[in-house]
């Protein structure tokens, strides 16, 4: 059968043609709706592990847009150091902690690199997570008794922590970790101790590989599929908030240079960074407020401002619209796809 070309000038032909276009648009629309429904049901139906790599316990918000309000991800916060080098554990403690405005750290730090400093910083992060979890039930925030796991193999001898300002002295192996599991199975916090201020790309690589090689020891279901890995903010140029902190840069370099075989590897960066794929995410108004709330009288009531207030002479500010601070509501990430 052959369908000849129509002259196209009779009214009935116009009507037929118009109906044909309407039919096409209806079919295409229904196809779109059906496809998105099927795909979205599958996407949200499977829980996947998201590794959130933060160099110090207070960097989590830099990648918060990747973890908030998502029941389909099982976030594993890999905190790579204990943040023991902060000046606020030493002489600056009195400047940082303002007793009338913010909670006292769980343990009074007695100096940089001390056990008290480590403990105080770890507890601040757990407090932050609990605060954020109270507003967002998908965030892990109710933790059981922590477990120490390891030491894990380090065939290449890359793990080393030097506890001194001059970066000299004995190199302590740091091949163990401490694991906090959320009692409601919403995610985990893993604390490594790889050395605040001397974290290396190789150590970050080792930490992520170690967790993936020993999932059960880190409280991760080995059968659960992986979503990807995302790192905290770093920026080595002045395009936005300049933050070339070597520990942050180490996280970026590990995620950029090493292929972990994850579906994606990403890290927070400036909007104008030159990378193949740069995505913009935004922390919800509710989560940002929950983290950075400050009362009219200056009391730090937010999970971040309160828990980490003692680590800043005032409290860490947030940029609600741009990238002029370390913590921002709009967040940009470079993405590397490495299946």
């Amino acid at each position, binding site marked *: 059968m052959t369908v000849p070309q129509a002259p196209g000038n009779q009214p009935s032909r116009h009507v037929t043609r118009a109906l044909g276009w309407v039919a096409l648009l209806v079919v295409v629309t229904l196809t779109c709706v059906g496809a998105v429904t*099927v795909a979205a049901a599958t996407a949200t139906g499977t829980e996947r592990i998201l590794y959130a790599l933060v160099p110090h316990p207070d960097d989590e918000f830099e990648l918060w847009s990747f973890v908030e309000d998502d029941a*389909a991800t099982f976030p594993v916060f890999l905190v790579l150091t204990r943040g023991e080098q902060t000046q606020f554990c030493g002489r600056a403690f009195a400047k940082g902690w303002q007793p009338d405005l913010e909670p006292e750290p769980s343990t009074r730090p007695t100096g940089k690199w001390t056990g008290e400093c480590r403990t105080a910083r770890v507890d601040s992060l757990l407090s932050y997570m609990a605060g954020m979890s109270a507003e967002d039930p998908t965030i892990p925030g109710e933790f059981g008794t922590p477990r120490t796991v390891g030491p894990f193999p380090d065939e290449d001898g890359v793990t080393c922590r030097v506890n001194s300002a001059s970066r000299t002295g004995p190199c302590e192996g740091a091949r163990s970790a401490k694991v906090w599991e959320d009692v409601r199975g919403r995610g985990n916090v893993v604390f490594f101790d790889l050395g605040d201020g001397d974290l290396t790309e190789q150590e970050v690589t080792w930490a992520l590989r170690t967790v993936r090689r020993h999932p059960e020891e880190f409280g991760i279901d080995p059968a659960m599929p992986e979503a990807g890995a995302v790192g905290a903010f770093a920026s080595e140029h002045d395009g936005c908030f300049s933050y070339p902190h070597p520990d942050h840069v180490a996280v970026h370099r590990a995620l950029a240079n090493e292929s972990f075989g994850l579906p994606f590897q990403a890290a927070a960066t400036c909007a104008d960074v030159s990378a193949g794929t740069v995505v913009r995410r935004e922390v919800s108004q509710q989560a940002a407020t929950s983290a950075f709330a400050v009362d009219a009288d200056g009391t730090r009531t937010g999970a971040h401002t309160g828990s980490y207030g003692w680590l800043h002479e005032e409290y860490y500010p947030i940029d609600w619209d741009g990238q002029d601070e370390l913590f921002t509501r709009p967040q940009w*990430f470079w993405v590397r*796809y490495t299946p």
Partner: protein
Amino acid sequence: MPGSRRRLVSLDALRGTMLVASVASNSLMHAPEWYEHARWAGVHGIDLIFPMFVTITGIGLGFALHRRVAPGTLARRAAVLFAAGLLYNAVTQWAFDLGTWRIPGVLQLYAAVVVVMGLLHLLTRSWIGWAAITLVLATAHTVILAATAVSCPGGLLTPACNPSGAIDQALFSASHIYRQGAAGHDPEGAIVVLGALVSASAGATAAHLLLAVRERVDTTGRSVAAAVVPLLCVAGASAGMSWLAIQVPAWVTGTPMLVMKRLWTAPFALAIAAGTILLLLGWHLLLDRVNTGRVLQGATYPLLALGRNSLLVYFGSHLLTSLLRRDFGGTPALLDRIWPVLGPQPQLAWSLLLVAGWTALAVLLHRKKVYLRP
């Protein structure tokens, strides 16, 4: 003969050019990573070839169906392509278990493209209509991908979270798609067919525009140069739409649309279409003139011969290479036995041998006017 009825020699030459690239690519024993198929996002060299063929198919269908549509013929072609595709899958994977027989495939994709393009030619045979169809299909594909990405971790399309994996498994079941679903997508599945239709539609737009130009040339007597501006405009519009297909999702969701072959995204399809149309324009200016010249005719004759038997050469070369590389029951693959006798540059010799062999076959068949058509 009216201009619109003359065979477009440039289209055969373009097909032939792509076939040389295809046969040569397929002959590579160890292609560098930048040339092998991109594992997910991004585009590598070999990712260009098949989508260019599909764009050329769209151009060819535009010419073939601009006067009439024969549904029976189209249905027969589609059925033959689909059946041949199933057989092709089984032979290239050497897997004949009905329980795991892969249903989607390159020939099946062609079959779907032929059917849909035929049906859409019942709706419109003007370049404006086809431009609108291209826009509608590109928008639909982008909406599906972008809306799915919103539900994915980080808003990112990955092998673990994309519509192809979900839809193709729902349509065919995991055991009947690419790598039994382990790859999380099917590079010739339903979503990819929609992307291929964007390529084919862009090609059809160029074809109908070229036809309109040729109709005008018949009355005004102008040369092939009349096609330059219109085809440049189609290529430019395709490139512009490609850019928009990347950027609009970024403006709306924050995540730009990926340019990638594995999901045959709209920006990828449209960029490939732009490039293919520019190549067509080049050959059109050279070969579709009234007086082409004997030297050029002779030099391009093998390409035209290849282009006239594109289906045979494209799939035949893939099939042959697949069989030569296959290790049957512990016996070394035939190619491994041939390799040592290919001289000091075995890869170069093998590639030249294959290209020359398929070209010779195509020339022979062309002389005898034997063409493989489903």
